[in-house]
């Protein structure tokens, strides 16, 4: 890798790593709380997978000169995180969880598909493994999305509420920070936000049409852009909880 490209790869990987970590952390709060025991097991595995993916990306970032994975997770202030704000929001009901995970999994699958052509071999190798696990995640939440959409009056109502609640925040997924030029520099123009968003909208619109769910309109730019380090009070709370034990004895081995 050319040394001038290092910052580009960092700009690429940090949002992806943070997305995976934060969505998995929030997901793990559902342990013991899924609507049936079998789902508890399935969902927990998905969250563990995602933490593993984040860990993999953090290890690559460390190779590029960033902090260690542990310090990336436990040693950053709110402003240093680059995930999309929608992923840090405190959880609501199961319909919101299903909608969020379905929307994210479609997005992540598209992102990974394009990432699989990355010229940096270690990344390409990791992405190949990660995609095998992500295929199950997407399938699982597609199934849930379809079941809630075709279930009862109540589940349809709750799903529509959840979609309405999430919609204004979803645009944040497709942003890349101050500039997208780095994508051109590393030959990954296909990952441009507008490209990703177009594919995502095509896919999701088709699903929603087939489920007879109304399309809420174009995605808007979010008020807070997590890719720029802008985060909500929910992220403050998340960090307080996540680092509580670690902070109590920062130099210690746990």
């Amino acid at each position, binding site marked *: 890798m050319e040394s001038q490209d290092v910052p580009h790869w960092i700009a690429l990987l940090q949002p992806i790593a943070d997305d995976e970590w934060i969505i998995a952390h929030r997901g793990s709060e559902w342990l013991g709380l899924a609507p049936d025991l*079998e789902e508890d097991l*399935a969902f927990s*595995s998905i969250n563990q997978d995602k933490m593993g993916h984040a860990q993999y990306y953090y290890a690559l970032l460390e190779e590029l000169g960033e902090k260690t994975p542990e310090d990336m997770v436990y040693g950053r202030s709110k402003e240093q995180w680059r995930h999309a704000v929608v992923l840090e929001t405190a959880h609501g009901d199961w319909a919101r969880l299903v909608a969020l995970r379905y929307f994210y999994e479609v997005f992540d699958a598209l992102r990974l598909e394009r990432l699989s052509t990355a010229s940096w071999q270690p990344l390409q190798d990791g992405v190949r493994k990660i995609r095998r696990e992500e295929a*199950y995640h997407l399938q699982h939440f597609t*199934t849930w999305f379809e*079941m809630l959409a075709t279930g009862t009056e109540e589940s349809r109502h709750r799903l529509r509420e959840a979609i309405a609640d999430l919609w204004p925040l979803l645009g944040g997924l497709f942003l890349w920070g101050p500039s997208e030029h780095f994508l051109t520099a590393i030959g990954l123009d296909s990952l441009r936000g507008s490209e990703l968003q177009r594919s995502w909208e095509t896919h999701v619109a088709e699903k929603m049409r087939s489920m007879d769910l109304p399309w809420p309109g174009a995605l808007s730019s979010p008020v807070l852009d997590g890719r720029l380090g802008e985060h909500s009070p929910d992220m403050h709370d998340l960090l307080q909880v996540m680092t509580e034990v670690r902070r109590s004895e920062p130099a210690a081995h746990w």
Partner: protein
Amino acid sequence: MALNAAEYRVYEVFVQRDASQFHVNVGSLRAVNSEMALQMARETFFRREEPCEVWVVPQDCIVASPRDSAYLPVHTMDKQYRLPAGYDNAPRWKRFKAKAMTIEEVAEEMATHKQGGA
């Protein structure tokens, strides 16, 4: 109170661990449909292994034999004639100064041949 419709269906889960083995039952789970049963089976029973294939079968589709000699064979009479142990060829081969063969030996030779050859 009958088992009401307000319950997910019970599926028995069978796993084939690799292509050389048959499917064996590992337990059961509740799922709303067969698609979910397959997805659930994966994380309910195979969190630490990579199976070759998984079957889910609605429990009520399984017909189990009564534990009864009318259904389950009991070999009380002498059936030695159909068992390898029922034959005493080895000492007889010995009298002809030749070694008795076993099927394991043959299989092993074939396996070795396969490895060594090609």
